[in-house]
C-alpha cells in the first residue's frame, strides 16, 4: 500500500490526470477549485491541497477493476450523480475503468477477457473496487459471473490488487441480503478476503463526495486513508450524524416529534422518538449532505435509518427508538418484557408475603423481640 506507483515500463507514455482534464476542456481555475473543494471534503490542510494538485498533475491514471456481486448498483448511481462534474469524470475518465459489468461495452467472453487482461497486465497496480456481498451458501451458486462464483472471482482479482475498496453496505456488511435469516449467506468482502486491508466506504449508498474523496485520497497520497475500527475512512465516518445534525438543539432541549403528522414535525423538532438512528450512525450526511449539499434524510423530515452501520436492517423497526428484543417474538420490546418481569416479581413478593403470614404465623407472633414479656413468661414455664 505504501509503494509509489511506478510508471509502467513497457507501455507508451500515458497522459497524466491533469493533462487528460485539460484535453477535455477543464480550465486551470476549475481544476484548482476542484482540488480545494475535494481537499476540504477529505479534511486536508492547505499544504495537502498543493500535494493533491501536484499528484493529479503528475500521476498517470490508475487502472480500476470494479466488480459487482449481490447489490443494486445504487453505489454506482450515487457516484454518477455527484454534483461536481469532475467527480463523475474521475470514475469515467480519470481512473481508467478497465472492467465493470454495468458500464462495459464488451460482453460475454470479451468482457471476461478484459478482466483477465487487466489483472495480468497491471499486476499489483490496479485498484479493486467491489460493490455487493459474496454469497457463500451452496458453494456460492447464488452469484455467478461467466460460470465462476463471486468468491472465486474476488479471490483471484484481489490477489494482485494494489488496494481494495468495498463500496456501500453490501460490500462492507452485507446489507439487506445479509439480514436475518440471510438465506444465501451473503458475506461482506472483509470476511471473504481475510488479512487484506480494505477501505469500507459505508452507506446505502455512500455519499458521492465521500466516494470521490476516498478515490482522490488514494490518487494523491498513494496509500489508503486512516480507517476506524470498522475499516471506514475516518475523514468521513468519525462523527455521528447526530453530532452534525442541524436539529440537535431540539434534542438537547427535549423537543421531539411524536408522530409524523403532528405539530412538532411541522416545527422541525428532533426525530429521536420516531426512530432516528443518528445517535448511533457514523456518516457525513449532516455536513456534506446529498445531491450537492441540497438536503439529507433528516432535513426532509425522515429519521436516519443508520444505513452506514452494520446490520441496520436487523436493528429495526426503523420507526422505533429501540429495537425489538430478540428471542421473544417480533412484538416484544424491552419495555414489555421489563414491565412483565417487574410485575411478576411484585406479584411473587405479594403472594410470598401472604404465604409467610399463614405458614410462619407462630414464629412471627412469638418472636421474643416482638413480645418479650409474653415470651419470657412462656420461657419461664416448666
Amino acid at each position, binding site marked *: 500500500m505504501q509503494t509509489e506507483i511506478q510508471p509502467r515500463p513497457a507501455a507508451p507514455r500515458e497522459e497524466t490526470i491533469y493533462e487528460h482534464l485539460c484535453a477535455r476542456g477543464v480550465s486551470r481555475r476549475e481544476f484548482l477549485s476542484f482540488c480545494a473543494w475535494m481537499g476540504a471534503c477529505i479534511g486536508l490542510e492547505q499544504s495537502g491541497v498543493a500535494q493533491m494538485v501536484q499528484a493529479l498533475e503528475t500521476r498517470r491514471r490508475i487502472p480500476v477493476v470494479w466488480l459487482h456481486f449481490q447489490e443494486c448498483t445504487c453505489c454506482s448511481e450515487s457516484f454518477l450523480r455527484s454534483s461536481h462534474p469532475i467527480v463523475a469524470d474521475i470514475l469515467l475518465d480519470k481512473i481508467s475503468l478497465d472492467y465493470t459489468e454495468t458500464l462495459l461495452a464488451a460482453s460475454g467472453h470479451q468482457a471476461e477477457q478484459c478482466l483477465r487482461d487487466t489483472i495480468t497486465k497491471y499486476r499489483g497496480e490496479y485498484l479493486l473496487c467491489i460493490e455487493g456481498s459474496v454469497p457463500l451458501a451452496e458453494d456460492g451458486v447464488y452469484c455467478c459471473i461467466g460460470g465462476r462464483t463471486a468468491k472465486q472471482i474476488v479471490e483471484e482479482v484481489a490477489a494482485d490488487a494494489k488496494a481494495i475498496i468495498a463500496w456501500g453496505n453490501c460490500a462492507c456488511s452485507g446489507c439487506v441480503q445479509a439480514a436475518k435469516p440471510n438465506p444465501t449467506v451473503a458475506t461482506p468482502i472483509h470476511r471473504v478476503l481475510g488479512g487484506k486491508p480494505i477501505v469500507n466506504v459505508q452507506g446505502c449508498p455512500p455519499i458521492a463526495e465521500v466516494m470521490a474523496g476516498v478515490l482522490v485520497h488514494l490518487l494523491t497520497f498513494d496509500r489508503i486513508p486512516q480507517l476506524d475500527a470498522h475499516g471506514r475512512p475516518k475523514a468521513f465516518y468519525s462523527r455521528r450524524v447526530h453530532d452534525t445534525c442541524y436539529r440537535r438543539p431540539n434534542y*438537547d*432541549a*427535549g423537543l421531539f416529534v411524536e408522530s409524523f403528522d403532528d405539530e412538532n414535525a411541522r416545527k422541525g423538532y428532533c426525530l429521536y422518538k420516531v426512530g432516528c438512528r443518528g445517535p448511533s450512525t457514523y456518516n457525513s450526511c449532516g455536513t456534506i449532505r446529498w445531491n450537492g449539499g441540497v438536503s439529507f434524510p433528516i432535513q426532509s423530515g425522515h429519521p436516519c435509518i443508520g444505513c452506514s452501520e452494520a446490520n441496520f436492517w436487523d436493528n429495526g423497526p426503523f420507526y422505533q427508538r429501540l429495537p425489538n*428484543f430478540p428471542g421473544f417474538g417480533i412484538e416484544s420490546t*424491552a*419495555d414489555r418484557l*421489563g414491565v412483565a418481569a*417487574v410485575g411478576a416479581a411484585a406479584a411473587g*413478593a405479594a403472594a410470598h408475603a401472604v404465604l409467610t403470614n399463614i405458614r410462619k404465623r407462630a414464629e412471627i407472633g412469638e418472636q*421474643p423481640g416482638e413480645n418479650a414479656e409474653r415470651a419470657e413468661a412462656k420461657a419461664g414455664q416448666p
Partner: protein
Amino acid sequence: MYASHDYQRVYVWQQPVRWFHWINALCITVLGVTGYLIAHPPALLSGAEASAGYWFGTVRFAHFLAGYVFVANFLFRIYWAFAGNKYANWRNFLPLTRAQFRQVWDVLRVDILQLSNQPVPALGHNAVAYFTYAGTGLLTLFQIGSGFALYAPMSEAWLPQLFVWVTPLFGSEQNLRLFHYAVMWAFAVFTVIHVYLVVYHDYVEGHGVLSSIIGGWKFMEKRHAQADPATGISGFRGRAAPAPAPGAKTPATPAR
C-alpha cells in the same frame, strides 16, 4: 421458640459497606430514572425556541455523572472485599465450599418453600444473597462496560475509551443500547425482590436486617452467634453447626 434476652449484638456492616450500599442505591435510582427518560423522553409541547431549553441535555448529564460515581463506588467495594471484615470478604461471593450450596438449599427450603419455621442463621448475608450480589455485580460490570462504550464516541476521556471494544461484540451501537437498557429492567426486578426480602427477613426473624444497613449492627441468638455459623469466611456451617460448648466465650465484635 426462644427464650428472650439471649440476643447478641454483632457489628456486621462496617461503615464503608453502608456508604457503598446507599451510594449504590442512589446511583442505581438516578441511572434508572434518567436512563428510562433517555429511552422514553416525555412529550413536551413548548412554544419556546430550542435554544431556550436544555432539559434533555441535563438528564443525560445526570446519567453520565451518576455513571462515573457508580464506577468509582463499585471499584471501592471491590477494594473493600479484600480490606473489609469477613462479612464483606470476596470469598463469600464465590461458590467455594459445599457448605455454601447446603445453605442455598436451606434458604430455599425455609424462606421460599416455607417448609420450616427455623430461620437459617446468617450474620452477614445468607449464601443465596451473596450469590445474588455476585450476579448484580456482573450486571454492574456489564452496565459499566456497555455504558462507557456507548459514551465513548462523545468523549475523549480515557475511561470511556477503555471500553470501545465492547460495541463490536454486539454488532452495533443500536444493539448494545438495547441490552444496556434491558439490564436496567433487570435492576428494577432486583430492587423489587431485594426490598421485599429485606422486609420479610426483618419481619419474620427479628435479626434487625433492615436497620443493619444504617447502623451496621445485627442481632443474633447467642447460640448461633457464639457458634459463629453465620456467614463470613469461617462460616457456612449453617444449621449443622455443632452446639456451642457451655459458657463459650463470645467472639469479640470489632470496634466501631
